[in-house]
């Protein structure tokens, strides 16, 4: 499964970065959210670490929805989804390939968002940067696992795309809270409840990865 998944991920990254319009628009949306929130603070006032962390993850979430919709839209041109369904690969390879590509694309966006949070919201990291990066990666794995699954659910079905946000956002709450708390800890420094939230994020990633591996073949087929 890993070989085909890597092929799909490489193809998706190449197509997503070619011209970079899709990724640039996605990053711009996140930047706009951070900028709009920055307008609510008075000159010289610091945004609380918890709020800054929440704004970072909110930007990430909106970007993530766009990224995965875009990745699955690639297969809706010229029946490529049917081609994938015919190919001698495990259907889950599509989920994994899209999750890998989405994970890296979202990570690129987050690099921009992190700079924007520091610049527009006046934040600095008092805690360990390694812990911060580790936290973001663990949370991103969960987001990618669910995002790739939900992207498949919505692919090619206009009516389902609106449903995606209704289903996706409630499901994402546990890992979102973990992300917010972990990043707050990194901004404030000191000994926070990092391990507990890290555990929640890791469990979220494991549960939704397992669910996707079981359910994906029923969800993503050659049916039109």
């Amino acid at each position, binding site marked *: 499964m890993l070989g085909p998944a890597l092929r799909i991920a490489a193809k998706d990254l190449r197509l997503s970065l070619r011209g970079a319009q899709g990724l640039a628009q996605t990053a711009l949306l996140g930047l706009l959210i951070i900028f709009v929130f920055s307008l609510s603070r008075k000159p010289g006032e610091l945004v609380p670490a918890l709020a800054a962390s929440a704004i970072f993850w909110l930007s990430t979430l909106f970007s993530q929805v766009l990224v995965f919709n875009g990745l699955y839209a690639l297969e809706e041109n010229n029946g490529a989804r049917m081609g994938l369904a015919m190919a001698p690969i495990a259907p889950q390879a599509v989920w994994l390939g899209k999750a890998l590509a989405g994970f890296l694309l979202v990570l690129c966006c987050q690099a921009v968002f992190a700079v924007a949070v520091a610049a527009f919201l006046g934040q600095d990291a008092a805690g360990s940067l390694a812990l911060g990066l580790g936290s973001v990666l663990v949370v991103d794995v969960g987001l990618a696992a669910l995002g790739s699954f939900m992207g498949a659910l919505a692919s090619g079905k206009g009516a389902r795309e609106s449903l995606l946000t209704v289903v996706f956002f409630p499901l994402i709450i546990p890992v979102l809270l973990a992300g917010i708390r972990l990043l707050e800890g990194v901004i404030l420094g000191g000994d926070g409840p990092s391990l507990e939230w890290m555990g929640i994020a890791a469990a979220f990633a494991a549960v939704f990865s397992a669910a996707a591996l079981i359910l994906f073949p029923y969800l993503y087929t050659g*049916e039109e």
Partner: protein
Amino acid sequence: MLEASSLAKFYGERLVFKGVSLRLEAGRTLMVVGANGAGKTTLLRVLAGLSRPSAGSVRSGVERGRMAYLGHQTFIYPDATASENLRFWTGLYGRDLDDAALQDALERVGLRRFAQERAGAFSRGMAQRLNLARVFCIGPSLLFLDEPDTGLDVASTAMLHDRVEALRRDGAAVAWVSHHLARDLAKADDVLFLDKGRAAYLGPASGFDASDLSGAECAC
């Protein structure tokens, strides 16, 4: 090679076809004919495993990597070049093409000089030729053709027919949906005629009366 028994397909309440049973042997061509909406494409998709039948079953003795589908959809990624498209699809079938093999495959469909061009800029005919290159690189033992010559010029259509005939001679089984019965019937060994949601005829091509098609209707 492929055996289907008592196949039925409904979309909601609407019957597409029912009671379709057939056998497809190696080295034989089954032509599926019928009026628009008779369920030919749906049947082909069910046989290829792309759509689940509402009833009945399909059994195939061919592994998935030796099946290919060539239809209206070209499976190409418009933002990828012709080479990238071909490499991606053949790679999924475990056939990694080196540069020489890639150039050769594109040469055979007349696209060698367009290898590095975006496939999105191709005409319908060029896109379908790229699709042909994909299918022939796979070297299928079971080939599903759904009006594969749509959008192809005369020379490309002749090339397609030659290559399909070559595959059949090598032992591939072919299930072929065609609207050009007068032209294509001679290439068929057997004919399945879908009419009013049922198999109105299934037998040797020599025994099929093409005039039956004039009164054919869909099941809708």
